[in-house]
Structures are given as structure tokens and as C-alpha cells.
């Protein structure tokens, strides 16, 4: 009788989770195996695998995400170490700024970079005055441009994830190693990096997933013209032309599987740390 009461108390949560999370998840999987006329088929997957357009969107997504995640990770490891080694006041100030700018992403970030590096951007004009055509070096509306913008939101996230793990390498370790006659380089190779390894893989996986799922920045930058997976999915369910929700479901299943895999990798990294 008492158990029944507890079940009553917790059931609204499961109702809400079913309605907005579980049923949508099942519906995406189910619909990915149906043609737009409702017939069971695996054609959606075949169409994706046979289409240079969709394959290119995966290729773009993977390359942009990997590049921005790796650059973001390298910068945040160096920055985290620098912040960690600094005196209190400056390190606190840097962390505060990192924390605050970590919320600057998506649509506003795309606009800010257009102001900086767009056709009439501040830096574009500045470089033009110096006799350099920015667009001949890189185009903000290209893959490389997107990587540069993504790196901006990867760095704060990377620092917030990496910084705490430097606590596990105390200066004492380094001093001990050096006074025992090893070089610093050897210390990092044999002790430092192995200690940081779980945090490094887990952060890389999170940054990678963060970029793979990102939609708003690329969408706002090019009005939805950019060929990456999230934007493709969005166009298939809310574009002006032809809507193909079941094809969108198949793309979603593939992307969701990748995101889930990355999330599990990051969790394993965290567990190894404990």
C-alpha cells in the first residue's frame, strides 16, 4: 500500500520523460525505417550512404568537429597549466573570464564573428588597410571559418573541464622528479601525461560531441546553407522545400549514435580517474 503511494509520487516524472524523451527517441528509430509513405524499408539509410551530399555533410561535421576539438584541447591544456601555475589573483581573473565567455555561443557568437571577419568586418577592413585581403587567406563562411568560430567556444569548455585535473599533479611531484635527477620532459612523459590521460580523452570526447551536435552557429552564419549533419537534419524537418522527416530520422539515428558513443567514452575517462 505504501509502495503504491511512492509510485504515484514518482509517476508524473516518468510520464513527462516518456512523452518528451523516450517516445520521441523510439519514434525517431521507428521512423528511420519507414519510407515517407509509411512503408517499412531501409531505403533511408541506403539513400544516405549513396548520396555524396549527405556523406559530405558527415565528412564536414567530422572534420570540423575533430579539428576544433583537437585545437581546443591543445589550447586549453596549455592555458589550464598556465592558469594553474599562476598566483591567485590573475588565475582567478582568467577563470572568471573563461567562465563568463563559455556562455557566448550559438547565434550571438556567429554574429560577433561576422562583425569581426565578415565582408565588412572590423578585422577585414583593418587588414585591407594593411594591404592584406583576409578572404584570400581564409573565408569565415568556409569550413576553416567554422573551425575558427567553433574553437572559440571549445576553449572555455575545455579549460573548465581540464583545469581541475591539474590539481592531481602537484608541483611537489615535479620538484621531486627534478631533484632525483630526471628532466622535466621525462617527468611529463612518464608521470604527468599518464595522470592526465583520462581527463584528456574525456575532454576530447566532450569537445568533439559538443561540435558534432552544434547547429545554431553554423545555421546563423550561413542562413542554413552550410552542409553539416545537424543543419541537414533541420532542413529536412523545417525547410521551405521538401520535408522528409523519415530521412531526417535516419540521419538523426546515426548522429545520435555517434554522440552517445562519445559520451560513453568521456564517462569511461572520468571513471578511470576515480
Amino acid at each position, binding site marked *: 500500500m505504501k*509502495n503504491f503511494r511512492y509510485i504515484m509520487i*514518482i509517476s*508524473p*516524472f*516518468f510520464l*513527462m520523460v516518456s*512523452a*518528451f*524523451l523516450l*517516445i*520521441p*527517441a523510439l519514434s*525517431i528509430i521507428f521512423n528511420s525505417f519507414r519510407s515517407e509513405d509509411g512503408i517499412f524499408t531501409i531505403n533511408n539509410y541506403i539513400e544516405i550512404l549513396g548520396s555524396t551530399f549527405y556523406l559530405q555533410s558527415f565528412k564536414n561535421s567530422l572534420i570540423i568537429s575533430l579539428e576544433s576539438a583537437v585545437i581546443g584541447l591543445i589550447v586549453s591544456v*596549455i*592555458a589550464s597549466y*598556465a*592558469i594553474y*601555475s*599562476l598566483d591567485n589573483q590573475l*588565475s582567478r581573473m*582568467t577563470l*572568471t*573570464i*573563461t*567562465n*563568463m*565567455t563559455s*556562455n*557566448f555561443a*550559438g*547565434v*550571438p557568437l556567429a*554574429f*560577433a*564573428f561576422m*562583425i*569581426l571577419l565578415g565582408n*565588412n568586418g*572590423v578585422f577585414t577592413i*583593418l587588414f585591407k588597410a594593411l594591404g592584406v585581403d583576409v578572404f584570400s587567406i581564409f573565408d569565415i563562411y568556409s569550413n576553416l571559418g567554422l573551425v575558427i568560430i567553433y574553437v*572559440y567556444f571549445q576553449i*572555455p569548455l575545455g579549460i573548465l573541464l581540464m583545469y581541475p585535473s591539474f590539481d592531481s599533479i602537484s608541483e611537489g611531484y615535479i620538484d621531486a622528479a627534478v631533484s632525483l635527477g630526471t628532466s622535466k620532459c621525462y617527468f611529463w612523459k612518464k608521470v604527468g601525461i599518464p595522470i592526465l590521460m583520462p581527463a584528456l580523452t574525456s575532454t576530447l570526447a566532450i569537445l568533439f560531441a559538443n561540435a558534432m*551536435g*552544434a*547547429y*545554431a552557429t553554423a545555421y*546563423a552564419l550561413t542562413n542554413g546553407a552550410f552542409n553539416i549533419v*545537424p543543419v541537414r*537534419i*533541420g532542413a529536412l*524537418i*523545417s525547410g521551405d522545400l521538401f520535408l522528409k*522527416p523519415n530521412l*531526417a*530520422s535516419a540521419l*538523426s539515428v546515426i548522429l*545520435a549514435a555517434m*554522440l*552517445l558513443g562519445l*559520451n560513453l567514452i568521456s564517462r569511461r575517462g572520468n571513471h578511470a580517474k576515480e
Partner: protein
Amino acid sequence: MQKNKTNKAIAMGLMIYLVIPIFFTLIYSFAAKWQNTLLPEGFTLKHYIQLFTTARYFLALGRTMFSAAISIIISFILLVPVIYVGKLHFQWLDKIMGKIILLPFALQGVILAVGLIKIYSGGPIAISGTVFILIGAYFVVILPYMYQGIKNSIDSLDVKTIAEAASLLGASEFFTFFKVVLPNLLKGVTVSTLLSFAILIGEFVLSNILVGGNYETVQVYMYGTRGVSGHYTSAIVISYFLFVLIISGTVLAINKLEARKG
């Protein structure tokens, strides 16, 4: 000493890098005209005046705050009993919850939109394009953060001992929960609540696809102004960012306070 200088330079470089886009957006929002010249051709407050006299902007901001607040409140009201009952009576719940809160990471943004739009565009519950579908989606987005915040808070309270002590003293479970556990919980979840709030204010893809112009949020409004004037848009970006700053500043201040207490 040399090493310390390098670290200082790296930290300064990082700060400058992170601030540059915001700084120039700020300047741009005050510029009267800045097109082919190195420096702005004069400054003006006109974009901010335009912004603060635009009812549509405030309505959009209000909608964002309303839908975010409602989904956070719903999340809190529904999650607390699950975690509390799970801790005291149904230990198996913890495992299930651990699996459930993984799902929002897979069903990120546009993927969740695919699932929701298909179910709720027709059929018995056609709520697509209304605030209800947005609140449901937001509920999912913040689920992992709210869950972690409430769980940490309940774990730190040692509710088992509290419940035993209270029942020994003759208090009902109901009374104990509302008089002892809940007030302590509310203090503990401030940070995750504000974090969820900051996430939802920055949310674009779900509001754009699920409700769009039918229930225009501040992000959708911001996106819609891109063709109007770069200066006006940057004024929106700046005022929006100020708003987020206040929220994240509060989070930092609370964390600092907690750290000092602990």
C-alpha cells in the same frame, strides 16, 4: 621567473582572445556607421534606444524567461520526489535514472526536434507550435543538469538519518520532507537552476524549429534581425550577453560563498 612570465603571457593572451569578439560587438553596437573605415564614423545610442523601445524584443525576452522558468520549476517538482524516494525506498531507481539522463546527450538539439515534431504535429496531442512543446523540450535539455544538482544536494543532506530521526520523534514523512528536507534542498540547487537557466536562454534550435514565429523567443528574434542592421543586432547581442553575465556572475558568487563556508 622566466617561466612565470610565459604563464602570465599565456593567461593574458587567453583573456584578450576571449574578450575580443565581445569587445568589438560592443563597439559596433555604439557605432553610428562603420563600413569602410578603420574606426567608426561617430558614436550613437540610437541602436539601444531603438532596442529598448521595441516591444517585440521585450516580449521575446519575456517568453524565453517564462518558458525557461516553467520548465525548471516542473523539472524540480518532478525530479525531487524521484530522487528522494529513490534514496529512501527504491534503490533500483538510481540505476534507471543513470540511464535516462544519458539520453538527452544523444538526443541533442535538432535530433530531439525531429522526434518531437513528428509526434506532436498531428494526432491527439497537436501541441507543435505552442509553448507546451517548448516547455517539454526544455525539460529534456536541462534534465541531466537538474538531476545532478538535486542528487548532489540530497546526497549531501544525509536524508536517511534525517528521515529516521524525524520518524523516531513522531513526525510524519510528509512533514519531514516539507519542513526539513525541502528548505535545505532549495539552497543546494541554486547553482544548477541558474546553470539550466543560462543554457535555456542560449537555446536556439528547438525554439526555432518547434515553435518559430508562433512563440518567438529571444534567440529566434535575434536571428530574425540579421538582415535589418548589424549595429542593431549587435546591440541585442550585447544586452543579451549582459543578461547572461548577471546570471553566471551570480553562479560564481554563490560558488565562492559555498567554498568559503565549506
